[in-house]
């Protein structure tokens, strides 16, 4: 999408917002929501993954994710996998790298672009989620995602984590453990990693550990050529 499109969209949003608020002086058309709100553009949650510290064969992040979100842990084509461990090898040099791969929480997510019902969406703090109340299970987003990050639930589920509702007929993927983040915690995979490979934090806060490190070390986004600006960055690739 070009910059012009974004500007047009922003202009329309602002215009619509102004029109809504100023219907009559002192009268608001909508009820101002109570409680804690996430402001757009203020926080951008992201991860920095240090592939040099990631041990080949170690699966702790995947196990932690499966336990937290109630996934079966199976790796068949019809099993949900929110995070995978990947081992890559440069054939000419023989250099091997191990890394965890999951939803990259893009700034311009293709899964959101293609969703026909608006179920696939990006939260104001940059987390890309599926609103399962709206998901019709068409799986366009799974095809659009260049990271193969999304899974479809094929069978009825029971005994879900009360904090992580999941159900048959909907698409799902890494939520960055949004239920933990909203409570001030961090994702289960980052917490579980003994080698501190996964650094989680706010990319927009210049004083956060992750922003400092992203500024100091060389890191890459996977498939940066697609210009999706993923929130997950990799070091040492």
């Amino acid at each position, binding site marked *: 999408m070009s910059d012009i499109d974004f500007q047009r969209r922003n202009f329309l949003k602002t215009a619509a917002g102004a029109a809504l608020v100023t219907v009559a002086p002192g009268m608001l058309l909508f009820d101002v929501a109570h409680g804690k709100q996430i402001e757009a553009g203020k926080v951008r949650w992201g991860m920095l993954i240090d592939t040099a510290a990631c041990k080949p064969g170690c699966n702790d992040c995947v196990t932690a994710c499966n336990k937290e979100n109630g996934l079966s842990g199976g790796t068949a084509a019809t099993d949900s996998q929110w995070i995978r461990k990947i081992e890559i090898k440069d054939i000419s040099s023989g250099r091997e790298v191990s890394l965890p791969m999951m939803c990259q929480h893009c700034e311009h997510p293709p899964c959101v672009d293609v969703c026909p019902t608006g179920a696939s969406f990006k939260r104001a703090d940059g987390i890309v989620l599926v609103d399962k109340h709206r998901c019709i299970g068409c799986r366009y987003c799974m095809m659009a995602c260049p990271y193969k990050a999304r899974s479809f639930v094929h069978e009825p589920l029971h005994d879900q984590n*009360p904090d992580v509702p999941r159900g048959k007929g909907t698409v799902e993927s890494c939520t960055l453990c949004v239920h933990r983040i909203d409570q001030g915690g961090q994702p289960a995979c980052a917490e579980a990693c003994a080698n501190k490979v996964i650094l989680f934090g706010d990319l927009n806060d210049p004083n956060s550990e992750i922003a400092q490190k992203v500024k100091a070390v060389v890191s890459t986004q996977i498939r940066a050529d697609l210009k999706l600006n993923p929130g997950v960055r990799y070091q040492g690739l």
Partner: protein
Amino acid sequence: MPKLDIGKGGECVKDTQWMRKNHMHMLKHQRDETVHKGNREGSSLKDCIECHASIKDDSVIAREDSFCVACHKYEAVKLDCFECHSGLRKSAWLKRDAK
């Protein structure tokens, strides 16, 4: 009228008659607040379950007279929430999960 197991019960966020008529609107409003805006304060399905899950089996859907099932069966209104959401009290789920 159906007889239902109200769990712990006690004083709800609104009076009983209001809740009978409007609980679905509250749930629908809260779901958008939570999923899209990350607002997990205030009333939520989890909080409903916390009070109204049966003392006997910690669930709002396990039996014919469970809190949600009893009325929905009587009124023949399909209950979709628990296709995805857990009908268990969180504390009970944690205990079961630890086993």
